[in-house]
């Protein structure tokens, strides 16, 4: 009796197996754009701060901006590979 109730409840709670990948995709894909933008912004911010600290004006900004763009694309490709089937 109790066992049956437990089983019944579990089947309500556990999402159907074919639904979980869909929700995972939703979570993963919904973060693509904002992660891309945030990567570039963070790269530029690190570069600007390093330049201000070391007084080497444009160099670190340029370097880390490129790193940021690269990070954005790397993440984009990784996420697309993982989620976008």
């Amino acid at each position: 009796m109790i066992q049956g109730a437990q089983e019944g409840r579990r089947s309500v709670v556990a999402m159907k197996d074919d639904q979980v990948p869909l929700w995972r995709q939703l979570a993963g894909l919904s973060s693509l754009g904002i992660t891309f933008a945030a990567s570039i912004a963070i790269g530029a911010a690190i570069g600007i701060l390093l330049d201000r600290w070391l007084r080497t004006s444009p160099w670190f900004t340029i370097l880390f901006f490129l790193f940021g763009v690269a990070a954005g694309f790397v993440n984009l490709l990784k996420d697309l590979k993982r989620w976008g089937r």
Partner: protein
Amino acid sequence: MEHHPTIFQIPNFLGVLGIPGPWVPEHVTMAWLVMAILVGLSYLATRKLEAVPGPMQNLMEVVVEAFGNLLEQMIGPKGKRYLPLIGTAGLFILVGNLLGSIPGLKPPTANLNTTAALAITVFLSYNFFGIREQGIVGYLRHFCGPILWLAPIMFPIEFIGHLARPISLSIRLFGNIFGEESVIIILLSLIWLVIPYGIYLAIMMPLSLFTSVVQTFIFVMLSMVYIAGAVHVEHEEHH
């Protein structure tokens, strides 16, 4: 867009710490309210535990089991270790988001400070879990990519990519909830009579309930993905 205060406010007893204003900030009050609700529910549910659970205990068991199952599906058999972090974050965000549907209350997650606190907690935690599982050298080796001479390039790229995660987590949650709140406030102040309330009840209310649940789910899901990525050694993809 006038400012609507929440129905209850706490006098600012933290002024000595340098927090300005006559009242404790709204999102902090609301966050405390969410904590009080959760603590109260947990107390009611676990006050007397029984083998055949009563309604309260049953509800909480369902909720906790749901998080546990999700963790085991995402991270693997050892996933239940991370239940305290994920469950707390998930319940806090869910109850916080749903507070927005109660007139006179505001969701604490409609403020970037609250969501940033959550996202930074998740960020520090998954890095800690990764270091705990693989050791600091093993974990940092992940950042350097597979090819040795590319390491000086890969390291900053991976580093920036990781730093972008808490930002995207916090801004997405904040943006969705804040935007939804703003739309509702503007809608209700557009015209008088019953029209905006009809629109609110017919469209915005279901929409906001949906966003609340989906945003909670996305936050929890991404946290799990990050923890799984940090804990596993380039986790095996099972499609």
